[in-house]
């Protein structure tokens, strides 16, 4: 049996009820609320600053979207606990799709990703245009994808391309992705990245990775490389057996 209840994928009939008509799609961005079951839920109604979404007093009612009022701003996307709202813009040569995304690592603008359909099957290639992680989104990132126009009604998810891990710190096997993630989570200095990831704490004591780490921090934070200072140099600057230092000291 087709349908969201049986396969998790909306049936064509279910979709027909929620997809905007071609004329509206061609006019510019519009929300697509793929909510087809009567569940008690209504945050979308309040999320819309234009009053385009109505659920009503009976909160199990399906949301009704007034597409004439909808500006496609996407404020409703992260407010839907079911992650069922998308904003599709098929007015250009290329379609854009704003979708909710709650996986880590987050993609970055410019990434090329595999676009997935409602069944999670690859539907083509998408380009990440924007990743919105504003605090108000409460941890639901809103990712804007660019896809071929014919995929506007098809693509509802994406998978980052299986990138080969790039090792930055070889001693402790810390990848580029881990370091970028640490910076995005607030490690803004070489020392902070070191504490968060152990990059630079291995046998070579950072000789291999510290410059690469500095560059990643500069890139991620928009700083000039001159502003990214090395981690505090502390003795011993070379790896030594601890016993050597713990042993006798002939100080003077």
């Amino acid at each position, binding site marked *: 049996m087709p349908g969201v209840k049986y396969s998790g994928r909306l049936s064509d009939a279910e979709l027909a009820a929620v997809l905007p008509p071609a004329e509206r799609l061609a006019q510019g961005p519009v929300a697509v609320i793929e909510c087809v079951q009567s569940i008690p839920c209504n945050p979308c109604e309040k999320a819309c600053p234009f009053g385009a979404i109505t659920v009503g007093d009976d909160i199990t009612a399906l949301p009704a979207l007034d597409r004439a009022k909808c500006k496609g701003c996407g404020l409703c996307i992260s407010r839907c606990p079911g992650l069922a709202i998308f904003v599709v813009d098929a007015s250009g040569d290329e379609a854009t799709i704003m979708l909710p995304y709650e996986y880590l690592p987050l993609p970055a603008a410019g990434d090329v990703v595999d676009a997935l359909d409602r069944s999670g099957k690859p539907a083509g290639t998408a380009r990440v245009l924007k990743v919105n992680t504003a605090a108000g989104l409460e941890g639901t990132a809103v990712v804007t994808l660019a896809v071929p126009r014919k995929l506007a009604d098809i693509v509802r998810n994406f998978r980052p391309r299986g990138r080969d891990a790039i*090792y930055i710190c070889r001693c402790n096997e810390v990848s580029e992705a881990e370091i970028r993630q640490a910076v995005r989570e607030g490690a803004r200095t070489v020392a902070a990245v070191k504490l968060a990831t152990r990059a630079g704490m291995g046998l070579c004591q950072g000789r291999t990775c510290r*410059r*690469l780490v500095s560059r990643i921090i500069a890139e991620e934070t928009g700083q000039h490389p001159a502003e990214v200072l090395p981690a505090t140099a502390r*003795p*011993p600057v070379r790896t030594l057996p601890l016993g*050597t230092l713990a042993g006798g000291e002939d100080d003077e």
Partner: protein
Amino acid sequence: MTNNYDIVIAGAGPAGLAAAVEAARRGARTLVVDENTKPGGQLFKQIHKFFGSHEHKAGVRGFAIGEKLLAEAAELGVEVWLNSVVWGLFANKVAVVRGGEQITLAAKKIILATGASENAVAFPGAALPGVMGAGAIQTMINVHRVLPGKRVVMLGSGNVGLIVAYQLLQAGAEVVALVEAASAIGGYGVHAAKIRRAGVPILVGTTIARAFGRGQVEGVVLAKLDESFQPVPGGETTLAIDTVGIAVGLTPLTELAWMAGCQFVFSPRLGGHVPLHDADMETTLSGVYVAGDITGVEEASTAMEEGRLAGIAAAAALGYGAAAAEADKAAVRSRMDVLRSGPFGLGRRTAKAEILAQRKEAASCRE
């Protein structure tokens, strides 16, 4: 006690040895500490002839210059501790581990000549065995006489990349390509011409997109780059190789200077953060001198001149050879200026002048 030296020098490379020779010649009791099993730093890997003019030992091969320096140092009674690690610098105390034993040296003057370390690049597969720094390749072929592989691609067209590619050819390897991300070759044209006429393609505007292989590098994918260093669609080429040489510059090894509390300046042309120093190579900390690549990445020839300058200045500050010191230093400085002349030296010359200017400013701020 015996561990009281006039001058302790960290690093027995060209800068450290040259500093030691000048200091010892003037009568200072001098010790050089180096973590390696052999002195000479990178000099003994340099089997090519150096540039410069006669007084810079132009035309002499690097290792021969190293042998001469070592002989001079031995003759002058310079003590050289090998396999000895300087692991910390605390005021005028140099912390050393030698033969498993911790020794604290009291030094009247300290010269840091720790050199530089090679920059790494990150691309998928960069951590595969067979991908190595150009310095490692040089050690293997020129010191240990072992080929790292048979088919090599070299990344980086500065003098290091060009010279090591040439030395690989000399050692019997095939250099499949030398690739350079910039639109022009970075190093000397003469070095480039040598490998070009041996049939090595030099691919500018190209980089290594990734390396691949099972347990060992078996190939690389090269990518053509546009002017903004972005890959050109369809510009990928795959080469079957077993070794990748990385020659993308060096970074000064400055931990001891940071730890001591020297003031630093950021100089992209010199390889990153470098300690400020004056015309005598003294840092913002009285009695702590720097020489060679720690002050900014250059060549062995300039490193030796800086070492001489630091050696003369540190000795003179202790009263050794003080009368002739100004004239001696002036002679070194003029030789050094020559090494930094011409279009290739312009960037370094300007950057070095900037360091001296900033050092003066730092000094006047304190007064």
